[in-house]
């Protein structure tokens, strides 16, 4: 699956897409693949604050629980309610319909520490080499 060029990525495999101050956040294709069949998603309610590097939700596969970390500071505007009943969408469309939350970024939110698509792809390719070594 392609990694959209306009998204930015974290080392913990979240993505963030900012369009005029409003950010959409999700997990990457690599993350969903590592997790396997996603069966449960827990997300914050609108109004909740998220803080860079802090957990804001949980995604669970059959075998594992995974915390989701905020790529930036902000306030939750909307959580993706579809995932409540169809968490498996995260396995098929993690960069699109299965976004997790929409966030109004805090003023001065800084995304400069995040990776662009090419850097992220190199990062996960390295991880793949590690795993098969």
């Amino acid at each position, binding site marked *: 699956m392609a990694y959209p060029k306009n998204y930015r990525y974290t080392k913990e495999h979240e993505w963030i897409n900012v369009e005029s101050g409003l950010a959409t956040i999700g997990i990457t294709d690599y993350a969903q693949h590592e997790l396997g069949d996603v*069966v*449960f998603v827990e997300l914050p309610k609108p109004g909740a604050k998220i803080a860079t590097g802090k957990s804001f939700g949980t995604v669970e596969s059959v075998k594992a629980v995974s915390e989701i970390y905020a790529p930036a500071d902000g306030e939750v505007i909307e959580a993706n309610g579809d995932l409540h009943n169809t968490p498996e969408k995260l396995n098929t469309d993690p960069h699109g319909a299965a976004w997790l939350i929409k966030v109004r970024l805090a003023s001065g939110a800084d995304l400069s520490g995040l990776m662009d698509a090419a850097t992220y792809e190199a990062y996960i390719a390295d991880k793949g080499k590690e795993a098969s070594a």
Partner: protein
Amino acid sequence: MESAATPLKSELRKTPLNALHRRLGAKMVNFGGWDMPVEYPSSGGLIAEHKAVRGSVGVFDVSHMGDIRVRSGLKLDGALAAVQHISMNDASKLAIGQAHYSAMLYPEGTFVDDVIVHRLGEDDFLLVINAGTREKDIQWVRENTKGFDCVVDELSDAYTQLAIQGPHAVEVLQKLTPTPLHGIKNYWFTHGTVCGLKNTLIARTGYTGEDGFEIYVPSDKETSENIWNQVMEAGREFGIIPCGLGARNTLRLEAKMALYGHEISEKINVWEAGLDRYCKMEKGEFIGRAALERAKAGGLKRTLVGLEMIDRGIARDEYCCCNEAGEAIGVVTSGSPSPTLGKNIALAYVPPAYSSIGTIVHVEIRGQKCKAQVVPTPFYKRPKKTGVS
């Protein structure tokens, strides 16, 4: 669940099928020091693997399991007496060609390991043990059979062990052997030719709660891969897929089969684990018996129950169970979504006062008290077939 004793990645042990799993693109994990496939994205992943076993057939590499042979020295009965001494079930009741579930116990009545005991001959037994406890088990067996006229051999590395599991397992394996399989009852075994390999151990056993077989073939890579490929080919018409340890775990959990380090351990005794029917107090002395007698008189402090989540949330291993007031009463030993039932299930130790069916308990999930209820176990029982053994 990795402990300090878990070897470094470079020291992970591999089964003879390791390279094949990697070629198939399996997701590999460290399981008790072994580099094992947890699921195969090429099979469709854990849930697809689980459903294949419940609905048709799947194949597992379980070569990491250990094998200990206990046979007699000069005198007859040395091996039987030794096996009786180190395990809680009554091995004297086994016919040649029969196997049963049993366990090896510490003097405290708690678990060294659980084990499948196969009676190969009058005085010849094969004990199949867990991977993560291999070294401890073999040492323990050697130590505790010293006073008996028997020979203990570790054969773990001599075998590649494949588990072919599911309602169509019998048809798949039958294509590869002239030995009539329908006549082999559950927990019986025979020796036959499989894929041209003479004298192969064929056992109607498994760890999935489904019908199926486990076969033990020579552990060289070429033979192991050849047999695996022939099983896959024979199973093609039934949609056979490779299955990993992830599905093995959800399958065994639905069937309430114990997992060492979870439902059973050196801290849990036989009565607590609810394995009474495999523990034959009347057979005479065995290690752990005296402590179990005392424990029985003292009454149960905790007991293993099946839970089904009522509130939204998945109980996981080691999560805390609490009562309505929020006081801790027990702990989850295994918890997962159940692919067969479509519910979130768990096994947990709770005080007997909370063990009757329908009792509401709470599981603490990330700081939230989530409601669950005690339900009958096993969670899943395979439908009885008619006309077939």
